[in-house]
């Protein structure tokens, strides 16, 4: 409401990631151009010809990527300070995502990677929420473009966007897909947040949890089901830690390694 009169100042920032989420924003094409009537991009490596770090205060900062180094952390804290509303963009920023796989590796391998990485590297890979207040999460790898637009639209109208908090199965059933779990395939749909319109299961591909675990996940039961389907402990461990951090309830999957 308060923003309707002037254009909202927006910045896109990338920490350690593939920049795929900002690319997804670019994929909006015409709709993005339409959005430009209401927003002004002040800082973005991908969306601007010449990037000059701007000292301007931002109405919204979209931050993708995980925090893996001191450099990332400094950058994140700087962005937080100059932004009114900070949105974590994509799996890396919200749940540590793909870079976070490092957290789940066996110790020897972890050390080897650490030695080869750009220094100074952090002990673990973190999502943004580990360090700063995050005002909203746009989940997924990469983010869902429609969800991004809906968020932006709500925000520009002064409405508080709210997280849907439903599992992928909810949307999967609406799309009338055959259940992969019933077919004997290990799918993380029941414990993963929806919003993707059940993209993967609709293509007959199992959900691997890129939108993060729900606050109501029954890990024990799903793990037992995976075991019944015939997944080994290691397979289950890998699936649960693909995008997400291993939940407390499944500590037993770690084994002795």
């Amino acid at each position, binding site marked *: *409401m*308060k923003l309707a009169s002037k254009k909202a100042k927006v910045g896109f920032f990338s920490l350690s990631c593939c920049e795929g989420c900002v690319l997804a924003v670019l994929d909006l094409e015409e709709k993005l151009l339409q959005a430009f009537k209401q927003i002004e991009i002040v800082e973005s490596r991908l969306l601007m010809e010449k990037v000059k770090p701007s000292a301007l205060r931002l109405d919204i900062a979209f931050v993708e990527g995980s925090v893996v180094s001191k450099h990332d952390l400094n950058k994140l804290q700087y962005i937080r300070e100059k932004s009114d509303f900070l949105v974590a963009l994509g799996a890396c920023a919200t749940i540590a995502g793909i870079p976070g796989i490092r957290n789940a590796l066996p110790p020897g391998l972890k050390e080897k990677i650490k030695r080869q990485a750009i220094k100074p590297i952090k002990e673990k890979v973190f999502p943004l929420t580990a360090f700063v207040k995050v005002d909203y999460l746009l989940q997924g790898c990469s983010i869902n473009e429609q969800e991004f637009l809906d968020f932006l639209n709500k925000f520009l*109208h*002064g*409405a*508080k966007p*709210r997280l849907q908090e439903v599992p992928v199965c909810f949307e999967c059933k609406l799309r009338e897909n055959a259940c992969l779990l019933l077919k004997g395939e290990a799918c993380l749909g029941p414990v993963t947040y929806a919003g993707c319109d059940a993209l993967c299961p609709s293509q007959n591909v199992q959900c691997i949890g890129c939108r993060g675990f729900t606050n109501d996940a029954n890990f024990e039961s799903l793990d037992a089901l995976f075991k019944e389907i015939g997944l080994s402990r290691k397979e289950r461990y890998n699936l649960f830690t693909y995008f997400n951090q291993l939940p407390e309830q499944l500590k037993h999957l770690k084994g002795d390694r």
Partner: protein
Amino acid sequence: MITPEKPELAEVLEVKQETSDTKTFTVRFENPKRQKKFFFVPGKFMMVTIFGFGEIPLSISSSPYKTGFMSFTVVNVGNVTNAMHSLKKGDQLGLRGPFGNGFPMQRFRKKNILFVCGGCGIAPLRSAIYAVREKKEEFGKVELMFGCKNPQSILFSQEMDQWGKQGISVQTTVDKPSPKWAGNIGVVTSLFKNSVLSPENTVALLCGPPVMIHFALIELRKKGFKDRQMFASLERMMQCGVGYCSHCNIGNRYACIDGPIFNAAELKELPVKEE
């Protein structure tokens, strides 16, 4: 044909900042005929639309004897209430209602009344307090016991001073006192020992957080209140007000059409505390 879900236009007449996060909105239907025909019993609620933001249930906090307008006392907690807080005099909103059963006020005649409320739970009780004050001669003694988080969050403190002068015994307590606070400290049930009303001829009206209602009922029973003398207003998630959406379903009852006021005997029959 009437669509029960259709919001009717209303206009904001006045906005009053009560505390840092709470405002009272005085509104009326734009259609004068509709407003003229509008009446309600304290404890009933309206479904209030802030166009583009959504719809929420709000108890009416003004006197049922004041026709021509109604008031809502609203804490800024969510999307819709946040948008509502930016409304100014003359702005439009949508209204449906009134919904719910309301307090059975006629059954309280000749009886003493004990109001017990916590935080913004005072909103629907304020309407009942005004109703009782208006027909003072029909009711016995009146006590109000009000629990708040801290002294800054006490709602209607000026009005309470007035009520005090008009013979209503008002007692407030806070969980977290400020250095200046000289009043009671503790939960609302800690005030019960001060009540001079004899349970035999008294009804208790309660509204507040679920925990408060739970413990208040226990303490009142200890004091000798019977279940049929205690009436609680329940808060539930609601989306329709007409028993369609099922969010407010408690057992086979619906808070929106069978409630939100239930007496303690009814509450015993219902799976209120499901966890």
